[in-house]
């Protein structure tokens, strides 16, 4: 019996050592160690033997089984290793410098949208909510409620497009402040974005452009808060660079300031701001003794021009594919 076992073992060993693919190896495992395999058959036959013989032969068979199992494992690793080596030498190298060919082409957002999204992210972090309003407005929301009566010289600065007076195209995003305050009680923190229109068309003016608007009304809001919020926004947008608040005049804020950012050793105006004028708060029935607020506005294109180095305002609306592709 022992001889028979040794014979099976030797035969299996020699077959395993010459097998050269994984399939063959698996077939051999089944042939010898499988449920109906030769070694398994011997093991099964042990149960008809006497205890001593069974013990003696059992040890031999089990050793044979372990022996073959490790033989199989070694051979398997060997075959795999040789196979990997062959793959590595046989497969052609790729030209990794060739262009990619993912089926979806590259798209892009307009630079104006990119700036707006960035500002939304920053301002929402500070607790500001988004408000929206119509682009076709009335003189009331665009001027009168904003403390800019008909005979006010400030109206000249914003040559307004009219449909049928008093219906007009909003010349700034500030009417959204009025609409929002009219339907909501303070405290209030909003930002608004959108298209605005002024009758001006030359190298540095387009009849349509985009503005952002911020408004905060609460108890004890001061110029200091305004500075804090505006400076935070500008630092997030442009990194740390000198900013100055320069006294100015807008009918709807008092005190008012222009916001200048230093760029290439020059002060560039990027927006206006101020404390909401009591007349504006009164127009929306807020208690001026209890509430104060600040408001600020910025031109989106101006910011995009600085951020991306665009030098012609008009190019924002030409939609030249060669420009769009760069974003």
């Amino acid at each position, binding site marked *: 019996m022992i001889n028979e076992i040794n014979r099976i073992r030797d035969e299996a060993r020699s077959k395993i050592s010459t097998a050269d693919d994984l399939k063959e190896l698996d077939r051999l495992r089944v042939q010898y160690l499988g449920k109906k395999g030769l070694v398994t058959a011997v093991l099964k036959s042990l149960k008809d033997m006497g205890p001593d013989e069974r013990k003696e032969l059992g040890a031999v068979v089990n050793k044979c089984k372990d022996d073959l199992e490790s033989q199989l494992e070694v051979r398997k690793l060997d075959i795999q290793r040789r196979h990997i080596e062959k793959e590595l030498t046989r497969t052609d190298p790729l030209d990794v410098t060739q262009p990619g060919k993912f089926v979806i082409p590259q798209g892009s957002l307009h630079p104006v949208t990119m700036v707006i999204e960035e500002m939304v992210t920053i301002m929402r972090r500070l607790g500001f909510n988004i408000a929206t309003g119509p682009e076709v407005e009335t003189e009331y929301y665009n001027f009168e409620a904003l403390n800019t009566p008909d005979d006010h010289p400030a109206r000249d600065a914003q040559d307004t*497009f009219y449909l049928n007076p008093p*219906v007009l195209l909003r010349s700034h995003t500030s009417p959204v402040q009025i609409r929002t305050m009219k339907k909501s009680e303070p405290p209030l923190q909003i930002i608004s974005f959108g298209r605005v229109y002024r009758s001006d068309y030359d190298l540095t003016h387009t*009849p349509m452009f985009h503005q952002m608007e911020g408004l905060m009304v609460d108890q004890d809001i001061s*110029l200091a*808060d305004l500075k804090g919020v505006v400076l935070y926004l500008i630092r997030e947008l442009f990194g740390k660079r000198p900013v*100055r608040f320069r006294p100015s005049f807008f009918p709807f804020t008092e005190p008012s300031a222009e916001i200048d950012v230093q760029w290439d050793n020059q002060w560039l105006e990027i927006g206006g701001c101020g404390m909401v004028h009591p007349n504006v708060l009164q127009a929306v029935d807020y208690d001026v003794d209890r509430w104060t607020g600040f408001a600020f506005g910025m031109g989106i294109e101006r910011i995009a021009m600085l951020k991306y180095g665009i030098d012609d305002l008009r190019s924002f609306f030409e939609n030249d594919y060669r420009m769009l*592709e760069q974003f």
Partner: protein
Amino acid sequence: MRLSINWLKDYLLNQDLKLNPKEIGEKMTMRGLAVESIGSSSRGLNNVVVGKIEKIDKHPNADRLQVTSVRISKDESVKPLQIVCGAKNISVGDVVPVALIGAVLPGDFKIKESKIRGVDSFGMICSGKELELSEDTDGILQLPKHSSIGDPLAHLVGSDDSVLEFDLTANRGDCLSILGLAREIAPTLKTRIRDPKPARFKVSSHRTSSILKVEVPDATICPRYTAVVIDNLKVTESPEWIQQRLKSVGLRPINNIVDITNFVMLEYGQPLHAFDLRKIESGIIKVAACERETDLQLLTGESVQLQPGDILIQDGDKPIALAGIMGGASTGISAETTSIILESATFNHAQIRKTAKRLGLHTDSSKRFERKVDFMGVGAASERAASLLRDSFDGNVYYPPIDTNAEPPKQLSVSIDMRDVRKVTGLYNLSSEKTADLLESIGITTHKRSANILVAKIPSFRNDLEKSVDMVEEVARLIGYEIIPERFPVPSAPDREFDDEEFLFELHIRHSLAGMGMRECIHYSFTSENNLIRYGVLPDHPVRLSNPISDEFKVLRPSLLPSLLETYRYNRNRNLESQRLFEVARTYLWDESVETTVKETSRVAGLLSGMRSPQGWVKDSTTVDFYTLKGLVENLISQNTTVSLAYEPVTSDKLFFPNRSAVLKLGTTEVGFIGEIHPHVREGVLETDEPLVIFELNLDVLRKYRRRTVRFKKPSKFPAVSLDIAITVDKSVAHQSLIETIRGAGGELLDKADLFDVYAGENIPMGKRSLAFHLSFLSSDRTLEEAETETLKSKIIQALQDTHGAQLRA
């Protein structure tokens, strides 16, 4: 507003100050009076000095040139310069202007060290023309022999001045005057202003009332009118110093009378006007509102049409001037003028603004009246001009001047609550004493009423200050915004819904499209009527602007597609094919039910042309078609909303190709269009045979179904059973109705039914097509038996046959 530094000095108490224009500019800018630019009237004279010719030799290589030796310093140890010169009118001992190396002459002519025909030259001897000091081209400018050698030429010719250009805000009319600016500048230089204080009118036997009457029936259009009669005048040049002042701020001297009125206007900010007395026929100056349309010829010769309401100066009942804006031609100053009426007045600022704006006549005068002039300054300006005419030109001033309202209005007092000032500025330690000092420095006196209340007396020239809030701003401005601290406000948690979701929905739409390879565009909201006609989308009642810039920007867009198609054309003309464009914007249509009478609808529109993906070495790229775009639109909608839309064929349209386009519907609501371009537009307008498809969707409708929350559905633990069927059916049967039939027959166990092949042609009868579907059955609670799915399959085939006459394809 331009300010000459030399002129400014005339009004500063401390005359010895060294004024640094740049520093003044920066300080004023930070006080709210923005200085836009600083010019120098000695521009082009830097590095040009007074020199003396010591020696003249012939040029060795050129007959027409001479080699000079020019002394440019009083210091004898400084060597004279060798300069090559071509002019003939020079001789030894001449004192001449010398441009040194580094000078930049007018016309950006840079003086460099050079070699002229082999001889070194270290500068240039200049003509008057080269320095723009005279028109004279005949050779070198000869300077007075006693001039100090080495001095800057600018000192000698008196053009050593700087000019600050102010960009003033609408509220600061008081600073449209040199005195007004001096008032703001003086405290920053730690000095005070010096008022020119003109001599008062003298009693004279020439009584004004004997030759002139003034009538102002309505004081609301002209609160104050003063008239001074001056005779014994002769029209001539004005004094050199007045001409110099006017020139320094860019005004052309004309004659003594006009120059003096301009000079005083700039000095006081009070516009003046001089009428030729002899041309006033009635002896009555009447200020009245225009009653009916009529024409008036102005000083410039231009004729304007007057409209009711315009304020007029009349000779009796005959208009002779457009009050506060411009005088008329008939009564203007001429060479023969010997006597004048000098007008100094205030007019209703709103009406001046209205008239000036309508006529497009923005004059130095109207600009000041629109911003309200100083009521008290009216008389002072008149006195100043009269005394200049009297003292310099022997004018005979009549007495007393006519003044319709010599009674000054009561001085305004405004109280300042220091608690408000501290609260607004965030400067909690600001004292009322410091505040009073700041205001006092610009001429606003205060007194303390109680611990926290200051009462300010508003001077008449500051008519922009009316309320407490104006005073708070004034104090903040004078303190300097840079002093105000920086603080971070505590956010207030809103307890109501805002429009964030609405705004973000549009942003998500943009991101989805960019993610699918589309490029975002932004177009003007208005376009031309022609453009809308060409693309067949002009509404019956277009929303037109009443004052458009041009026809190109006249109608508010009813659709975003024409702009996208124009951009497509623009880029295709630059040889760009395969464009993928989109825009998210509003469209506009009249709607009386909307508060603003215009309904704005948020929309997204897109365009695909050419190849589906970028060409290159990829061989499998195909051209775009209806289904490419439909796939994109379906993705867009399912990424962002929870709706499923019905696609119905478009049967008639001007922009979309009928029967090769679809209208998207949600129930009966139209949500948008998608499809090919109408051949009429493609051939007539776009002139292209490139594949091109477009879509437009209404985002206001879709937003209502935005994908805010997702309800999770547990995947089934049991395997799905898949099988395919192929049918032959009439071409007219729509895929959508086949799917509906399949779903109806498949019941709940049918999980998916997807089209995977469409075929017509060989082996398929004419008028029919074959469609193949991939069906997948799934139960959430058991493994499906083969018999069960086979039964369902037969049921589906039967239903397709019964409903659509479909045949199972072998």
